[in-house]
């Protein structure tokens, strides 16, 4: 069957008519398959949701237990039949629980990547390249300017700065799901043993990561009640980026604003945001990862979604691969 008959965009999201389900719908639907727990992909209010157990757990933590009518956990690598369509979930390497969704029917196979990265990440399963006819790729960092350096180099810069400016609190802006825990884990990997102070918005999710066997070391709430203002001198505090513009940040002595994100590659972005120490740590693929992955899937056709579609489509044209933008709406890249 034609690929566009198997999956095509509708206002609610990517729809599969023979299986009667949506992938990452942005509005409440009857049946939703969800790639990962970031709020632009995983919304509440669907009648039934299928996702990995970890993604379901994360949705429960974020939206409360009644986030969907019914839920079904998908086991990575196992095929489930939905209205004659063979559906399977495979690791995407984006955040804990993240998956690509493979949809096969009558000899046509499409893989929807959700968000993914190829860099090593100790807080989630690594991306698994899948052979398919059509590969739906994200394009958050779909421009040749985006190269994410090794995350260990970025963490080394953070630690060096805490030594250079021991009187200042290093406030690291990192999204609450995925990035924050990855930064914690990276700090532990290089032997940073002091407590890491966290904003309240990270507490539940970080605890969940720990319960899944991901050791994040000692985390303490960054509240003034735990001590005097001076106690945070030289400390590393992690919180959602939005909190740093807030009055919340005033409890720290002379804070150094750091931001862990792929966007930090662009100096002007860092400068406009008042970021003093940009850390280029991303949970998305950079340009080289995107293009390498496209080749690896062997797909004859590439559909490009949320991000800078035109550059990736152009690259595919130059490589002789059919490609088109999907123009899905409603994805705001919470994850970076």
């Amino acid at each position: 069957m034609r690929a566009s008959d198997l999956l095509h965009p509708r206002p609610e999201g990517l729809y599969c008519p023979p299986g009667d389900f949506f992938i990452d719908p942005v509005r409440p639907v009857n049946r939703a398959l969800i790639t990962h727990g970031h709020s632009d992909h995983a919304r509440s209010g669907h009648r039934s949701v299928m996702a990995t157990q970890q993604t379901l757990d994360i949705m429960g933590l974020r939206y409360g237990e009644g986030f969907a009518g019914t839920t079904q956990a998908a086991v990575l690598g196992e095929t489930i039949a939905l209205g004659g369509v063979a559906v399977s979930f495979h690791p995407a390497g984006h955040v804990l629980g993240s998956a690509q969704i493979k949809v096969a029917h009558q000899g046509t196979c499409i893989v929807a990547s959700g968000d993914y990265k190829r860099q090593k990440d100790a807080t989630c399963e690594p991306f698994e390249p899948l052979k398919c006819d059509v590969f739906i790729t994200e394009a958050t960092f779909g421009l040749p300017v985006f190269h994410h350096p090794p995350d260990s180099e970025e963490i080394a810069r953070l630690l060096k700065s805490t030594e250079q400016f021991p009187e200042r609190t290093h406030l690291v802006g990192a999204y609450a799901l995925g990035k924050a825990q990855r930064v914690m884990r990276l700090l532990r990997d290089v032997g940073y043993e002091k407590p890491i102070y966290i904003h309240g918005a990270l507490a539940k999710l970080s605890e969940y990561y720990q319960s899944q066997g991901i050791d994040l070391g000692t985390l303490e709430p960054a509240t003034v009640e735990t001590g005097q203002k001076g106690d945070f001198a030289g400390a590393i505090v992690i919180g959602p980026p939005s909190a740093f513009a807030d009055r919340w940040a005033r409890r720290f002595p002379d804070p150094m604003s750091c931001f862990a994100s792929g966007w930090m590659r662009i100096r002007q972005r860092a400068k406009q945001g008042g970021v003093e120490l940009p850390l280029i740590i991303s949970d998305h693929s950079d340009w080289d990862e995107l293009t390498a992955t496209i080749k690896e899937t062997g797909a004859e056709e590439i559909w490009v979604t949320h991000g800078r579609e035109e550059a990736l489509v152009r690259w595919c044209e130059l490589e002789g691969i059919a490609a088109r933008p999907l123009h899905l709406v409603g994805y705001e890249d919470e994850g970076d």
Partner: protein
Amino acid sequence: MNRFAELLDRLVLTPSRNGKLTLLTDYFRSVEDPDRGLALAAITGDLSIAAVKPAMLRTLVVERMDPVLFGYSYDYVGDLAETVSLVWPQSPLDIANHAPTLAEVVAKLQAASRSDGPQVLARLLDSASTSARFAIIKLVTGGLRIGVSARLAKQALADFGKVDIAEIEELWHGLTPPYAALFAWLEGKAEKPRKTALALFRPVMLSNAVGDGDLEKLDPADYAAEWKWDGIRVQAVCEGGIRRLYSRTGDDVSGAFPDLAEAMDFSGALDGELLVGDPRQATGTFSDLQQRLNRKSVSPKIQQQYPAFMRCYDALQIGDEDVRGLPFRERRGRLEAFVRTLDPSRFDLSPLVEFTTWQALEELRRKPLHPVIEGVMLKRWDSPYVAGRPKGPWFKWKRDPHTVDAVLMYAQRGHGKRSSFYSDYTFGVWSGPEGSEELVPVGKAYFGFTDEELRQIDKYVRDNTIERFGPVRSVRADRRHGLVLEVAFEGLNRSTRHKSGVAMRFPRISRLRWDKPAAEADRIETLQALLDS
């Protein structure tokens, strides 16, 4: 090269002066010669490398990648140097082989001829990391633009070697990159470099502002008074045929004032104010002077229209004699005789202001006889000329600032300690016909208030935000609702860049006028009247 690149990356995003000093001193401490000296020269603008034009950079990159993809990338990033540094294709092998040092990069660039320059650059970019590519491109396109002045770099050297910055400034123009002797001295491994060059800068003597109650303790008879001219402080040094005009921080500005440098036909070192006009006839205003500032080259027309001259007020060296140790009274006598021998269209003497009591001087200070006078200077008759800002011998007693009542329009978040506070304020005054007045922005200020007042304004901004653009908030400001700020400033210049047509000099918040209704803030005509006076 990577450490230099990292230094640039950090400096450009570090707003605080102390933060920059820490980064620089750490760099000087951890990096060896000659790299650190070359980095220093790059920052102070003393590194000469044949320039590569931006168009050439673009040509190089589109030879290596799809021009359409380059176009998308450049549109997104907006800065050519940065785009090229990011998209430059590289094989991992190149980096693994050998990351070039700053010294190697500089040597290759300096040895390159005009014709093989682009290819040399391309090979360097092939072998460098992303950050290093950006640094290399900045070196060859000229102007690092990292918010570090030569003065700040010298302060970092002084901190690094625990010496007074005056010592660095005095030596500076006799030294050349990569400054190995200077670093050796600062690290205590060698003697202080000897001054061998001619016409070096002498660190200047600075004054303190007259504070409350200062004058009561002083005897007017001990002090000479002069007008304080609102030009730029310069030092003219001529020695053994070498002529140099220095700024107060020791930067050589001779190139910007060739007309004045041409007339420096003497042997000695003079301290004074650079102004424009013909001193025998009329002294130009600060706006006139601005026509001569911040220019790379000065056309003959501008030189003719706004000729530069020096109003001399001190002598540091006369012929072969260093007179800095003499009392001011004696230096003044020598200066008067010396200036008489100079070209009167380019040099004159800053006149003394006669007075017997502080009250009498106060009268004169309030009504200066020329718009380019911004107050009076007091100099102790018996004081020697010493570097720095000693308390007592020299005072500046400025005219009271102008003030205007303006309405807060936009607020921007600060940095560091102020990063969670809206601490940079754009304010405006009313313009337009009665009944349809509009606020027009006239300036921006980020100090003058207390910490408590900052908290109050911050709360006001958060409670009255009507729009947000990144770190900037637009604050409700109309006839019936708005926060009035009393803004003090030193002067006004005409501006074609601002919608209001005026630009304030040194604006700061002097009072918060919670009591004053927004509609009663000043009108633009109040400021315009000041311009015309």
